[in-house]
């Protein structure tokens, strides 16, 4: 298939995956150095999913994301500097330091937000899709969620709404095999995509380590959505390289084996794609190295930007709660 993909586009897929990988590596360092508070859920290993899906989207399409949201945001066009600034809780951050890792969003470019509640983004995507449909806009909404979300009721309710109303939504299940320590196979019998089929929508399963496969599935789904034919469910088989979140490295968890991890790493989405591009003559080793170096600089600059951005003013801690605040509303914890 690769030979039908223009070289600049193929390289952009690589670039976006490399960006996510390097971003996450830097996040880990910043967490270890106590520059980032709270917890981050690293996306490394799953890059082909975010990048393959978002490769089929335009800026005016929207996504709802998950607790593991850095990858989606970057793939959708998020700015590295503003993301780091958010993680460092600065005013230059996407959410002015109010959101952090679990809520990073750029509504302007269609990133409706990471979400700390499993499954909660799915109906939100449907509502946006309804707006697109009602306004006859040629836009699509994508909802990303994990394999664990497949057992949240609201996801089912949302799939049904999308199906009965032919909404331009794509449900993307990132099946990384685990929800924290719980293997998918212990908590579900049939595959996630089978459930989607029971709502009367196409449900497909693709290799989530293969950016090209993901991209083609996304393309089919977006075409369906943009032509008013309704939703699609795409299950992507993938794997996370790190623990559930940054804290896991300091814990003894044994829900998965080193062998399993190593086996998945053999199919690393970034390496696979680099190799396939080179095989197909879409680029050379030097091009890859040049992209890596470019990304490296971007990451450095992003961290620099973030560090130079001022922190928010505690006197403004209640800002942003309402578009229209009133006297004493929201209330401080003591009478002023």
């Amino acid at each position, binding site marked *: 298939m690769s030979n039908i993909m223009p070289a600049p586009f193929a390289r952009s897929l690589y670039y976006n995956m490399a960006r996510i990988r390097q971003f996450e590596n830097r996040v880990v360092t910043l967490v270890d150095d106590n520059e980032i508070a709270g917890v981050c859920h690293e996306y490394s290993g799953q890059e082909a999913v975010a990048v393959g899906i978002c490769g089929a989207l335009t800026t005016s399409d929207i996504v709802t994301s998950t607790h593991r949201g850095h990858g989606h945001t970057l793939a959708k066009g998020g700015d590295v500097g503003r993301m780091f600034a958010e993680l460092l809780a600065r005013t230059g951050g996407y959410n002015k330091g109010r959101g952090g890792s679990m809520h990073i969003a750029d509504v302007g470019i269609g990133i409706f937000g990471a979400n700390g509640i499993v499954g909660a983004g799915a109906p*939100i995507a449907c509502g*946006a899709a309804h707006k697109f449909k*009602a306004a006859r806009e040629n836009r699509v909404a994508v909802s990303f969620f994990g394999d664990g979300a497949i057992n949240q009721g*609201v996801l089912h*309710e949302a799939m049904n709404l999308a199906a009965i109303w032919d909404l331009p939504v794509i449900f993307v299940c990132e099946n990384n095999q685990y929800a924290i320590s719980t293997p998918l196979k212990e908590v579900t019998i049939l595959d996630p995509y089978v459930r989607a089929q029971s709502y009367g929508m196409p449900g497909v399963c693709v290799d989530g380590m293969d950016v090209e496969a993901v991209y083609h599935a996304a393309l089919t789904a977006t075409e369906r959505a943009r032509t008013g034919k309704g939703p699609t469910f795409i299950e992507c088989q993938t794997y996370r390289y790190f623990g559930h979140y940054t804290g896991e490295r300091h814990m003894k968890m044994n829900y998965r084996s080193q062998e399993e991890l190593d086996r998945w790493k053999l199919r690393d989405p970034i390496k696979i794609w680099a190799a396939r591009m080179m095989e197909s003559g879409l680029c050379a080793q030097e091009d890859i190295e040049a992209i890596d170096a470019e990304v490296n600089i971007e990451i450095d600059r992003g961290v620099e930007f973030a560090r130079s951005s001022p922190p928010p003013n505690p006197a403004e801690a209640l800002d942003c709660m309402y578009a229209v605040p009133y006297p004493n*509303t929201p209330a401080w914890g003591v009478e002023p």
Partner: protein
Amino acid sequence: MRQLRFLQAMNEAYHQAMGADESVMIIGEDIRGGIRGETKGLHGAFGDLRVLDTPISEAAFTGFATGAALAGLRPIVQFQVPSLIYVAFDQLVNQAAKMRLMLGGQANLPITYTLMVSGSRGGNAGQHSDNPYPYLLHAGFKVVCPSNAYDAKGLMIQAIREDDPVVFIASAMSLPQKGPVPEEIYAVPFGCGDVKREGSDVTVIAIGHLVPEALAVAERLAQEKNISVEVWDPRSLLPLDREGLLKSVKKTGRVVIYDDTNRTCGFAAELSAIIGELAFSSLKAPIKRVTRADVPMPFNLALEAAVLPKPQQLEDAILAVRSYAHV
């Protein structure tokens, strides 16, 4: 002026708001059919894409409204029964209410939630008699609780125009009440309480459908016992018109709160705490709460009456604070 029922006033507000602004839509269960009448005619006037009848999926349609709002619409979300908000509670409390702050103010969420037939309506028992605004206040939602048809229309118009999530309490007892309602579109601003009756001896703060009851008690006490009761209606519970509230309290120095929700951590507790802190030196008697008891509504009507706040209790409380002498 023309008289309308509370329910008709709501319906008119819906029609006028949707007529005035293309981005207003409404979503909920059985609203085309319009079982009760508040959504009558909307589907015919505004069609499938703005009037959405949903499956029984409250969590999803609540989240749907959040997404529609983020994408630029102004959704009205109808809950057929107030206790259905519990099924959608994550989408309300963890998503819609928190979204704007979590986003750092990137987007507004102009959503109106209507809680139909709030409160008890005679034998509807444990799961269909809640008046759940304290939950929503605690979560930070703006909440309005109109006590008559005029306020219902005006507060609904303002709720739909407001750029934040707003909960509109449509009390079961208020829906059939008639009152004067102007034909033109008008808004009642938030944060403006209303002295529904002036008085000088005791301030009664009454919420929603209890306002007419409080007025009746006040009238009776004026005639029978020459007691002058001021009845204050907050109209919007959040934002709260503290200035108006404290003005009345400072005048009378004696307060009874008349509120039909569960007692513990209810709205009456909040009012009592605010007054106790900010008007302490004006208080001549303890603040009394007359609320619902802390149980789900029992089915039997006599038990229901025993659980609900009653005019007699209000009267007793007024008399008690009125005759209270600081020792």
